[in-house]
């Protein structure tokens, strides 16, 4: 029978081979799903994974989609490295979008460079403050942050929905649940489809890479995540670390939210459920919780969104196929990660 045998050390090779194997297995599983849906598997896979990369406009769109995933994903990678489980980045994203969106609604005439900075800062602040709630609940009451951060997603979604349908609604919008359109300095500069958010994502990934690999802070977070007792012996405070990683991941998610409404939709609309915050969880794991790895993982998951749309248009398959692919991918990564600490051995019954 097959047995799992614990390795003496973690296998470096499998740290990076595991996501590749997971991707291959996802493609195979995807082919089977296409076949079951009555689509030629090769044509289906081509449409899903290759066709979105074929023209320049699509490639720009891919980067634009990847930007929020990377921005949120690097924050979550830092969080998960410290063994703190912020599952509520989606809520922090929406909180950032909502707070940034207040400015054009109430100060529509404010038109200079400062309004852009203020809106981005409000986005950061919104995500950060929303993330402080699960952090404080964990530190003060030992409340499980997985549950609290996730539940707060639904709270902020409802608050957002109420605000956009109520006090923030554009009176001239024919009763559609949306705000006024952002204008001038309230919109992020863009190059084709790619807006400033992509730049922020790149900077955040590089900065956090340096912090995690070179700085004592990164050492502290890795120690806390791997062995809390030893980290306490090193004099690191677990409470401070919980606040720190929630602040970083919340702020980045909030920034991503502000960038999304300032760069893509250019207004607040309801319902607003982009799910970037949830998909970024997959991005963080696929990127091995390494900020540089997260950049590549973000691009891959952005492709899964694009592929879903392409599949819908040219294959007539529901674009929920994207969620299926994302789920299968996460499942295979977690399974393949077993190989980092274990090797598979065949052993005859004896």
């Amino acid at each position, binding site marked *: 029978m097959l047995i799992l045998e614990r390795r*003496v050390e973690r296998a470096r090779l499998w740290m990076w081979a595991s996501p590749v194997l997971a991707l291959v297995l996802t493609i195979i599983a995807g082919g089977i799903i296409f076949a079951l849906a009555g689509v030629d598997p090769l044509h289906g896979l081509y449409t899903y994974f290759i066709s979105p990369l074929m023209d320049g406009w699509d490639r720009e769109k891919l980067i634009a989609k990847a930007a929020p995933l990377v921005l949120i994903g690097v924050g979550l990678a830092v969080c998960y490295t410290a063994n703190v489980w912020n599952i509520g980045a989606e809520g922090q994203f929406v909180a950032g979008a909502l707070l940034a969106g207040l400015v054009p609604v109430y100060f529509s005439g404010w038109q200079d460079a400062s309004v852009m900075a203020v809106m981005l800062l409000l986005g950061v602040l919104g995500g950060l403050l929303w993330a402080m709630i699960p952090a404080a609940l964990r530190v003060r009451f030992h409340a499980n942050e997985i549950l609290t951060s996730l539940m707060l997603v639904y709270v902020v979604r409802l608050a957002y929905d109420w605000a956009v349908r109520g006090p923030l609604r554009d009176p001239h919008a024919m009763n559609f649940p949306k705000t006024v359109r952002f204008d001038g300095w309230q919109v992020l500069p863009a190059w084709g489809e790619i807006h400033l958010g992509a730049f922020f994502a790149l900077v955040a990934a590089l900065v956090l890479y340096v912090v995690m690999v070179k700085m004592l802070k990164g050492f502290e977070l890795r120690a806390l995540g791997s062995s809390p007792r030893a980290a306490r012996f090193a004099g690191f405070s677990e409470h401070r670390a919980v606040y720190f990683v929630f602040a970083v991941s919340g702020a980045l998610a909030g920034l991503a939210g502000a960038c999304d409404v300032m760069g893509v939709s250019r207004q607040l609309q309801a319902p607003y459920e982009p799910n970037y915050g949830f998909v970024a969880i997959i991005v963080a794991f696929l990127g091995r919780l390494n900020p540089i790895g997260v950049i590549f993982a973000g691009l891959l998951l952005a492709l899964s969104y694009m592929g879903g749309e392409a599949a819908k248009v040219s294959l007539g398959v529901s674009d929920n196929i994207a969620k299926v692919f994302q789920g299968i991918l996460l499942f295979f990564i977690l399974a393949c990660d077993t190989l980092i600490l274990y090797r598979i051995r065949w052993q005859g019954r004896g």
Partner: protein
Amino acid sequence: MTPAPKTPPLLEARNLVKAFGPLRANDGVDLTVAAGEIHALLGENGAGKSTLVKMLYGALQPTSGELFWHGEALTIANPAAARALGIGMVFQHFSLFEALTAVENIALALPGDFDLAALSGRIATLSADYGLPLEPSATIADLSVGERQRVEIVRCLLQNPRLLILDEPTSVLTPQEAEQLFITLQRLAAEGCAILYISHRLEEVRRICQRATILRHGKVVAACDPRQETPASLARLMVGGDIHAVRAHRDVAEGPVRLRVHELSLPPDGPFSVALQDISLEVRGGEVLCIAGVAGNGQSELFDALSGERVADYAHAVEIDGLPAGRHGVNWRRKHGAAFVPEERLGHGAVPMFHLSDNVVLTRHAVDHTVAANRRVLRPGARAIADRVIAAFDVRKGKPDPEARALSGGNLQKYVVGREMDRNPGVLVVNQPTWGVDAGAAATIRQALVDLATRGAAVLVISQDLDEIFDIADRIAVIARGELSAAHAARDMTPEMIGLYMAGMDEAAAQAAGEGGHAHP
């Protein structure tokens, strides 16, 4: 000599051996337990008591040897088989689901289908009957430790045990709860149930047990009637009369007091934690003070308070080189010349998944600018220190800078001790420096501790190993139930006195120390 019994004993073990690799945890153990007796199993930590009872309960399989139940040879394949025979066991650490009620927990352990209402009735009757009042519908999380133990005992009693094994049952009980337990046990014995009772508390054993089997280093060294013995003679049997002559002590220069603990008290921080009560001690530069004691009497709590992982209520509770350190954390204490080696090397002294060089950063980042500066980790500096420690302490490893968990216990312990020695600290606090370490590594570590003291450092060693203590100590104190005895010069101490202190009989021990002082002027 007792006359040969006409009926075979309830349980007999002959020549039981249990080997873990090269270590023989049980080495030819013989044991007989008769129906209706309360039989004590005595021995130091690591003497093999737990291994023996786990074999009797089917949780471990003997490497060789035979077991007889009512005179018939058998093997006990697993705990379920043991329970089917009528062997019940109450572990020191309970196996209860906290979120479930008492009756649900008990139902889970019983074979076959169950009817919770009927079972609740049986539990209520049985527990009242045996003087172990228990509310079947109470959630475990809401129960005190003593009440949780009752759930475990009642769970055993429901299966009409012929033999009940209790592993240090009173270690978690208040004196009143212990009294109640003794009454229950005596009643059970009167009904013909045999009880195998593991304890370190010699007074208790003398009070309720008719026979005692004493283990040392995996072998039975004596079987006696504890009622005919004194606590001192039992302690002597436990720790062995074969302790080597105390080595000639170094001439200790009367250095200044470098570590002082003054009336340190801390409440317990968990259900199995021990409160520290009014602990005071002084360690001078140049001396090794050893704190003896049976595990779980406050050693790790004391270590955490000394290292600053738990800060004290007031600043002068701990002083390092005369500076009040009680309110400061571990890195402040390190900056002022102290170093610490905890008991658990993997997961406390070192991060298992970190390389040895990163484990240098773990305890040095605040005190060594070659390891971390300007908020950056300096890997070359850390690597240089790791290499130095590896060379100085002959740490054997597979590749240049392996993860900590890849090292054997002895090698990692040498590394963790060496990492702190390398700083040449003025105060060193070590908890169980050679626990689970092979003899060669142990000798290296002990020598390093003595050498450090010789260079003028104050060395505090918390240990359960009496051989080790007599090997390296200048002075010895004993910790029992969170209280620390007076420290006596090692030459005035005997294993018997340490045993008395362990049993909490301080006056008798102090008296013996006084006599010892007269005997060896």
